[in-house]
């Protein structure tokens, strides 16, 4: 016990003497939490539209007005030449082209049917997709108004009208930040837990102090605990700072119990600390540890359900996410913070992450040798 206390004392001294680590622990969460959720937003606004009006009728103008009045679209080009509109797309001025062909109005009145043409710049798939959807719904609306103008008797309406009303559970205002902030917190905790710990151990290898430690009668488990406990505490500290910032700046107050969040985080940290320890046993320099960490972090973030929904990933990627500890914590955070899930609801997550912890730590401990 005394040995462990001596080790912890030394570790904390070094951590709090290292300005880089302090910055990482206190400034990184602030920046990540304050900047990223504002920037990483899926809501598509400001879609630039080019309208090719070859009809110049009152209907074509009504439709144009309706579109440009929408908050989603900026009318950037209004022309009668389709080629000009496409050039606008090529110059990246316009995202969407809507062509209103000649005699649009005439056909609509006489034949009760008219065609419009929509061309989408699909370089940014999300924007094109959503742009198309928004535009379609505006046109549908317009369609409804026109029908109202012409068919005074709705009972003759050949198409039955279904009205859909919806309610958004757990995040009624569809606030994207409510979705992002808990996820980013997970990434922060993961960074501190695994990679800071890995770098810390590898640093001792690099400067040679680990040799000095290895010639002492210190036990393997003492050394490992001495390294893991400080980062376990720092991980929980970062989580606390993050939760505090989320409350102050985004008004995110976990719907579920904080105790559940902390309990899961405590177990989760054991798993990622195991990962950090494992990385450190396979690397000799901080540079190597950095590169491996960076690679893993990319995979964890991109396949962890932070930005993209796991449900929409291909099957193989979904299977892969099952082996990503970050996935579980992100899910748990969203469940507890937004939905108010309790310990019973997250029991499988807890069990699986405990499994990760046991597996990664055992592997790392077996691989850690005092004698080469």
């Amino acid at each position, binding site marked *: 016990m*005394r*040995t462990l*206390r*001596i*080790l912890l*004392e*030394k570790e904390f*001294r*070094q951590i709090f*003497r*290292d300005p880089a680590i302090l910055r990482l622990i206190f400034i990184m969460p602030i920046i990540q939490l304050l900047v990223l959720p504002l920037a990483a937003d899926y809501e598509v606004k400001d879609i630039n539209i080019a309208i090719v009006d070859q009809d110049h009728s009152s209907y074509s103008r009504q439709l144009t007005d309706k579109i440009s009045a929408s908050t989603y679209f900026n009318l950037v080009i209004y022309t009668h030449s389709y080629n000009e509109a496409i050039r606008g797309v090529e110059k990246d001025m316009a995202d969407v082209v809507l062509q209103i062909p000649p005699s649009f109005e005439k056909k609509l009145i006489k034949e009760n049917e008219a065609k419009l043409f929509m061309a989408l710049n699909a370089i940014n798939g999300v924007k094109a997709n959503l742009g198309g959807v928004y535009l379609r719904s505006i046109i549908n609306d317009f369609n409804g108004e026109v029908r109202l103008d012409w068919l005074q008797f709705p009972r003759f309406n050949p198409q039955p009208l279904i009205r859909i009303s919806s309610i958004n559970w757990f995040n009624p205002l569809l606030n994207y930040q409510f979705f992002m902030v808990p996820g980013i917190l997970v990434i922060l905790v993961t960074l501190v837990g695994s990679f800071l710990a890995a770098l810390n151990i590898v640093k001792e290898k690099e*400067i*040679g*102090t680990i*040799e*000095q*430690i*290895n*010639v*002492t*009668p*210190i*036990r393997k488990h003492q050394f490992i605990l001495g390294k893991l406990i400080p980062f376990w505490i720092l991980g929980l500290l970062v989580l606390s700072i993050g939760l505090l910032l989320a409350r102050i700046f985004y008004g995110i107050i976990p719907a579920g119990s904080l105790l559940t969040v902390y309990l899961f985080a405590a177990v989760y940290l054991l798993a990622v600390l195991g990962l950090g320890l494992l990385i450190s046993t396979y690397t000799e320099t901080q540079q190597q540890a950095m590169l491996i960490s960076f690679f893993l972090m990319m995979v964890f973030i991109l396949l962890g359900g932070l930005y993209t929904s796991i449900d929409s990933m291909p099957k193989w990627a979904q299977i892969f996410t099952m082996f990503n500890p970050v996935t579980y914590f992100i899910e748990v955070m969203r469940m507890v913070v937004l939905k108010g899930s309790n310990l019973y609801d997250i029991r499988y997550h807890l069990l699986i992450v405990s499994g990760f912890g046991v597996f990664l730590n055992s592997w790392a401990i077996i691989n850690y040798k*005092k*004698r*080469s």
Partner: protein
Amino acid sequence: MSMEAAISVSDLTKRFGDFTAVDGITFDVKKGEIFGFLGANGAGKTTAMRMLCGLSLPTSGQANVAGFDLYKEPEKIKKNIGYMSQKFSLYGDLTIRENNRFYGGIYGLTDQQIKEKTQFMLEHLHLEDQADTLVRALPLGWKQKLSFSVSMIHDPKIVFLDEPTGGVDPITRREFWSMIYEAAHSGTTVFVTTHYMDEAEYCDRVSIMVDGKIEAMDSPSALSKQYNAKGMEEVFVQLARKAIRSDN
């Protein structure tokens, strides 16, 4: 193995793949002796020393260090030896006092013992004013003397010094050697590697390693006589010239 031996090694070998770094070395080091372990760069000195300290597992051979078997009781050996590696290995971001507290603590010294040891060390090295200075801010010579003192903090039976005076000025080197003598006088066995042949002359006995094998072993004066040389420098050059292995 006689009871007088602090270190007793027989046929100790370490291979890294096809490369035999240490090739069946056999020797005894007597208690309280200053044993100089010489050899050109790449001769296998550090590897041999790392095996004796329990940092590296031998491929074959037997060794007994401080009365304990290298294979069966490595942790007992560790309680009884001190080691100062080629690389400076105190924590640069801790102060002298904190380094002492750490190393003393992991060797199981009580707070009181650590305090006394630290006080003695600071006075001895004339570093009283620097007790709370970060170690990385100290000049190399002081750092080396400090490393040596820290490796002796638990009064080990044997202390292993791997090129302790590399890059150190002549005055500090002399001071360093007087510390080594003091340690030997108080009964600690000193196992030291060096490239300075004047230092080799200070040793009770020396061994010279060439290409992983011990080529010569005796007191410096006996070796000079045997190789018909004026001093250790000539003995060393005669032996090291036979080396086939390149410098690196």
